[in-house]
């Protein structure tokens, strides 16, 4: 989906405002928003790709005028309703109206282990990689209606394979409950001029990670 979250190359957002290193949250609700988002994923059963898809498909105006943790909370509410765990009426009334559905819950004692283990997207795969380091490739010029991780600024562009990472879960299918469908994942590097034209900084290179189905040979 060509979403508003796909921001690379847009203009007009003004300067970046640096912050000191110890400024981790700006309000207590941001702490709870982070923790709720992480904890609710277990009973919710959705994937990280579905979470990203929910965030980026907020209405564009709302996305751009919401702080990042507000985006997380709005997406979490959508995911909870979508999974049938919480009713839209409960969100509207801001209280539980029915008992919950039994299922897995993240226990406090399990948190350190869960965070330390993480959730790797690396997967085994039977096929051999189609491309090797140094190969010239062209990204596909595609405009999918679903979730994808190929930014608009890097579509239909020619680059060079920089790294081969092994096979990873394909977000395009995993976000929509269509399974992990692992694919070879590559880092592809593009000269700035390929992406941004003649006026680009001549010393600029931009790299993205691209799944094999995002790429064609040249």
């Amino acid at each position: 989906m060509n979403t508003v979250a796909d921001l690379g190359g847009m203009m007009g957002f003004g300067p970046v405002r640096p912050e000191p290193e110890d400024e981790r949250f700006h309000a207590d609700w941001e702490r709870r928003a982070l923790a709720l988002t992480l904890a609710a994923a277990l009973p919710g059963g959705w994937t990280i790709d579905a979470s990203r898809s929910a965030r980026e498909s907020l209405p564009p105006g709302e996305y751009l005028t919401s702080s990042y943790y507000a985006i997380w909370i709005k997406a979490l509410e959508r995911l909870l309703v979508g999974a049938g765990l919480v009713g839209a009426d409960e969100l509207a009334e801001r209280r539980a109206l029915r008992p919950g559905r039994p299922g897995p819950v993240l226990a406090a004692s399990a948190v350190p282990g869960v965070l330390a283990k993480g959730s790797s997207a690396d997967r085994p795969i039977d096929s051999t990689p189609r491309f090797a380091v140094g190969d010239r490739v062209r990204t596909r010029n595609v405009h999918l209606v679903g979730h994808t991780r190929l930014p608009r600024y890097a579509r239909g562009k020619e680059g060079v394979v920089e790294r081969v990472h092994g096979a990873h879960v394909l977000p395009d299918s995993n976000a929509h409950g269509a399974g992990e469908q692992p694919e070879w994942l590559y880092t592809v590097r593009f000269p700035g001029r390929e992406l941004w034209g003649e006026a680009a900084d001549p010393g600029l290179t931009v790299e993205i990670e691209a799944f094999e189905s995002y790429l064609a040979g040249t």
Partner: protein
Amino acid sequence: MDEKDMTLRVEALESILVEKGYVEPAALDVIIETYEKDVGPRNGAHVVARSWVDPAYRERLLTDATAAIAELGYGGRQGEHMVAVENTADEHHLVVCTLCSCYPWPVLGLPPTWYKSPAYRSRVVIDPRGVLADFGVTLPTDTRITVHDSTAEVRYLVVPRRPEGTDGWDEGSLAALVSRDSMIGTGLVEVPA
């Protein structure tokens, strides 16, 4: 939506989830404490300083960052597949996630607000020198810039250049110099005057 309403909205959501039995409040506290106290950019600074004092470690870090970072006890959520890239006099690295907020949590903690902002995500891939100027950083015009857009589950750690005048410094003193921003690429490491 103002801050007061977000406070009420998140409080309400938490109470709904707790009452319905989906979330254990104590688990939320542990998550918050982990990322407020334990997991942050001092972890990454430890990795960088080690790579500066130990050439064999540096080699391992640049070859297999996930394993080298795990040697120092760091890993897990949002750092499952790491790549380390080293700044040199000729090439400067910057990390972004233009699509969302992908960031190497085990070594840098939670991303700062600016990293998630449209201003940074939109501009750093097309005008990195302009973004660096917002951080007060000017690179020589002949320094090449490589921007890493984290579009999948690979996470990047920038190894900044070791500042001059630090020969013989121990790992701890060096780590204290390494800022979070220098490990994203929006800062340089300097010896305080």
